[in-house]
């Protein structure tokens, strides 16, 4: 078997990217109860911002920083009207927001048009062999994921994290206890959009080309499935879910080459992931891991 190690390295890089996206969705839905079906929008905005800036010759860290800032601002901007809506309408609005951004990018030729942006400079120096390149990329996404994890960890194990859980459980009660719930929801939207932005920026330089059709709504639903698998309101579960989903997807992709099936084997992956989600919805709707506690209250 050739290159199995590259296949596995590539898989873990994607686990890192989608782990960050899952943490970001978990902050919104798992902890705060905000229905965001447009996670892909902020992923896309991060990817495009960083790609445009780095192809203009700026170093990657400026591209990443810009991706984070622009995504976060976009999150804040959409949260202003959107967070006044009821949860289901918020879901619809975020879903549509992602599609609007995608269709704009597809039709604006100065932003790449339908072919997207190619030749995005990678963070790895040229001339390395492929396995080393992958290792450097894996190390980089690990650092990014660790930072996002720490940010989320601090947030959820704090009085701030208690308030956002309160908003999820009962927003009116939280407001009656003196919390400006809008400010909390907007902060969470901005922080988690920033995380989606850096995931996008990283993905762009890793793949070195992005197209609008890479950012279909299905990407958002993939992140939802990962959160469902790993566990709602559990930031470790975000990575577990990403690992399980991507591992399962890739295993199905390999398996189809060895199986004789009465169906189009390319559909096997979708059938199996659908089945997996159904099993979870019926048997363990809360996901594998339980909600993170606010604090342990040792000695209390």
């Amino acid at each position, binding site marked *: 078997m050739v290159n199995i190690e590259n296949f596995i390295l590539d898989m873990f890089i994607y686990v890192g990217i989608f782990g960050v996206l899952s943490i970001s969705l978990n902050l919104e839905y798992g902890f705060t109860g905000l229905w965001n079906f447009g996670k892909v929008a902020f992923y896309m905005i991060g990817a495009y911002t960083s790609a445009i800036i780095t192809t203009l010759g700026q170093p990657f860290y400026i591209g990443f920083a810009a991706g984070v800032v622009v995504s976060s601002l976009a999150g804040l901007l959409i949260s202003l009207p959107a967070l006044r809506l009821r949860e289901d309408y918020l879901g619809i609005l975020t879903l549509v927001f992602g599609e609007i951004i995608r269709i704009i990018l597809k039709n604006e030729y100065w932003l790449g048009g339908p072919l997207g942006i190619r030749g995005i400079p990678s963070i790895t120096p040229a001339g390395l062999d492929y396995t080393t390149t992958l290792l450097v990329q894996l190390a980089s996404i690990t650092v990014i994921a660790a930072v996002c994890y720490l*940010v989320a960890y*601090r*947030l959820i194990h*704090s*009085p*701030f*994290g*208690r*308030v956002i*859980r*309160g908003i999820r*459980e*009962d927003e*009116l*009660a*939280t*407001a*009656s*206890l*003196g*919390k*400006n*719930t809008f400010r909390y929801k907007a*902060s969470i939207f901005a922080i988690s959009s920033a995380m989606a932005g850096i995931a996008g920026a990283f993905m762009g330089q890793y793949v070195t080309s992005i197209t609008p059709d890479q950012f279909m709504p299905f990407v958002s639903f993939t992140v939802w499935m990962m959160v469902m698998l790993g566990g709602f309101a559990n930031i470790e579960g975000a990575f577990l879910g990403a690992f399980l989903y991507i591992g399962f997807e890739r295993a199905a992709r390999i398996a189809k080459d060895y199986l004789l099936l009465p169906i189009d084997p390319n559909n096997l992956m979708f059938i199996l992931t659908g089945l997996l989600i159904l099993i979870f919805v019926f048997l363990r709707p809360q996901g594998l891991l339980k*909600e993170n*506690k*606010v604090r342990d*209250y040792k000695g*209390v």
Partner: protein
Amino acid sequence: MAHILKTDNLTKSFGGLLAVNNVSIKVDEGSITGLIGPNGSGKTTLFNVISGALKADSGKTYFDGKRIDGLPCHLIYKAGLVRTFQVPRLFQKMTVLDNMLIAARGLVGERLTVTFFQSWAWKRQEEGLIKKALAILEMLDLYHQRKNLAGNLSGGQMKLLEMGRALMADPKMLLLDEPAAGVSPLVVDKIFEKIVELRQSLGLTFFIIEHRIETLFNYTDRVIVMFKGQVIAEGKGKELVEDPKVIDVYLGEY
């Protein structure tokens, strides 16, 4: 005695239904005031309007000398007016202790800079708050449940926890919406004895919706009677029992 809460012709309608119709009431500082009325007479809507959960169509509300009508809930809380709900609105998937701590006033850890860079600051503040929360839980006989999820409590315990949560907020005045509904008769008296005790020890003002007239008359200084969105009578318990209007709409049901 000064009026801590005053409403001026408060009106709130839902479509064609006038739920609260020109209600002008006064609550004395440091008093325990009751609010009774048949189902659908607008008591809870009045509470919702006063506490900012609903916006009044017209009229004014004054609390502690300041106008509070039109303010959002969290600012009314800041002014010192804290409420409970008829059906307890607890944070079900959070522990009893977390339910208490969320209500505390002036938490430094709610600021993001503190959350990210100064976790020692909120941890130090929280030590004191935990002690305070546990003392309140002890008083309400909920201490043994402190690490349980609020959603696993019994109906009566939920009522108590909601009152505890409101006390955690250091209020000047509490609006209690049926604090003793669904609670066994023995505990009802205990709750109201606690209320009297808290009024004495902390100087709190209570405004209480309650259906059990006998209980209300025993423990309150004044009672306001609502019917079809309007205040039809107010006064001391014993005077009210003889008021023909009250007998007609409320006591007459007995």
